[in-house]
């Protein structure tokens, strides 16, 4: 008994260490990417034509790409774009999920059935397929800034469906709970009841959905970028940076080109580790 308790305590402390480490990694990556203007003052689009496709050096820590842009600067700025806009898209999708799923669950009946029919329609399509279809409906030949906004806005506007399902069932169970019945008996109804009593109780699920969405959106943006349907050049993002891997002949030839991939894997893993805590909280 004591042995198993010691083991679970050890396991718990080990998990806590990993989570703390993950938070520290995320904090470090975000801080460094926010300092991109100071660390790479020349910017992500400046071309060093005399040093195109160069190997890492003192001047260019990660070398340059085929048109002479500093890869380190592009990684910094690209990380900043992905890490700032993915949470923004996650926030949008969480709000939409709360609005659609939460309200549908709270109202119940035909509202819930209708909302779930729409979510089922979205969920019946593979995520990447849905993304490229909707992306194709929008103009592809747009300015880089618009392409960034379009990409992340689309992720936010389409990524709410699975969260809405969870929220609908949670809100449905809250609707029949004792405290909501008591609030109704006290005369609180409609939007006020939803805002004051239902929504605060959905918070743990909303937090979990928010954290789940961030790594999912980062990966989706990367996939779209590699497929040429994401952020437009010269704006960097993890997707456009990973597109460079397309031209590789062997791994050992230019290993520094894998830095964006390693960084992405580290960041997404860190999010997954933090996420496990949110899942526990929501459970």
């Amino acid at each position: 008994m004591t042995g198993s308790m010691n083991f679970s305590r050890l396991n718990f402390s080990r998990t806590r260490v990993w989570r703390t480490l993950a938070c520290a990694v995320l904090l470090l990556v975000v801080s460094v990417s926010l300092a991109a203007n100071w660390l790479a003052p020349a910017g992500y689009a400046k071309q060093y034509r005399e040093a195109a496709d160069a190997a890492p050096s003192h001047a260019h820590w990660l070398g340059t790409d085929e048109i002479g842009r500093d890869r380190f600067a592009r990684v910094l700025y690209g990380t900043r774009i992905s890490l700032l806009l993915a949470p923004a898209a996650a926030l949008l999708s969480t709000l939409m999920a709360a609005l659609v799923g939460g309200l549908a669950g709270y109202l119940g009946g035909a509202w819930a059935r209708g909302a779930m029919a729409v979510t089922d329609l979205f969920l019946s399509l593979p995520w990447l397929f849905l993304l490229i279809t909707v992306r194709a409906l929008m103009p592809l030949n747009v300015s880089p800034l618009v392409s960034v906004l379009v990409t992340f806005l689309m992720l936010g506007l389409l990524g709410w469906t699975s969260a809405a399902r969870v929220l609908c069932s949670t809100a449905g169970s809250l609707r029949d709970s004792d405290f909501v019945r008591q609030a109704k008996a006290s005369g609180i109804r409609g939007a006020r009841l939803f805002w004051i009593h239902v929504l605060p109780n959905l918070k743990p699920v909303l937090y979990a959905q928010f954290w789940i969405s961030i790594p999912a959106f980062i990966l989706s943006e990367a996939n779209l970028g590699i497929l040429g349907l994401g952020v437009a050049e010269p704006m960097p993002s993890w997707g456009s940076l990973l597109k460079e891997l397309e031209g590789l002949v062997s791994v050992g030839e230019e290993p520094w080109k894998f830095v964006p991939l390693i960084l992405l894997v580290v960041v997404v893993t860190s999010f997954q580790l933090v996420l496990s805590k949110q899942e526990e909280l929501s459970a």
Partner: protein
Amino acid sequence: MLRRKIARHAFAIVATVLLGGLLSSALVRLAPGFDVDESQLDPHLNSESIRALHQARLEQHNLYRFYFHSLQRAAHGDLGTSISLGQPVSQLLRERAPLTLRLVGIGLLLSWAMAMALALSAAWLRVSAYDALTTAISGTFLCIPAAVLALLSVLWNVPGALAIGLIVFPRVYRYARNLLAKAYSLPHIITARAKGLSELRILFWHVVPVAGPQLLAVAGVSVSLAVGAAIPVEALCGLAGVGQLAWQAALARDLPLLTNLTILVTLVTLLANSSAEVIGHMLRGQEA
């Protein structure tokens, strides 16, 4: 009971496909650039030809009429013509679907073999270090974008089906591990172990019947994951399948082709999910 369930699923599939088709048509019509035909700018065309072209596009103005005519044509096997490739959509699908079916099929088999091998061994051994290792392996694959795995498969000359398998495997593993771990922790399994039953007997007589229906549901979802994974794999590995066709259609904004592909993929995933649910229901019924 079973017939009613099948009928309900069939109705849901037809309704979803029809609704999805209408939604796709509406989105196509709302998309910027709709109703613009470059051929109308051709200086070689006279005013009558331009008027004829304009007249031909008039049908598309009313959404419901456009959708109804599309459905009518589809019922006769005419899915329209691809704008970018200039070929009938049905012909393109006939040419490309077999490759995608093969890739997705083999990819699914590989992903399930890998996921079940790791999940079962983790559940059998019950060693925390091994469990952590298998979770770390699947977690690493989960954190790599599908398109990067496709690119790496090109770099290392790995078959496309294996790339699809590696993309789907961590998702299947995650569910399978949790379901098997849950099943193995049930009191009757502990009793069976205490009575000295062999691990294989415990697996096939006591664990599979408990976790089977839920694993079947995961199998249904994994079809959707594999179809989604086929897009980057086919596009980046140069495999001429439906996934590559969807990608080309997206890049060329070939909306009629994309609409048809969307309906087809929706149909496939819905069929897979419904089949999994009906079989799971049958298994549960047999058990009861």
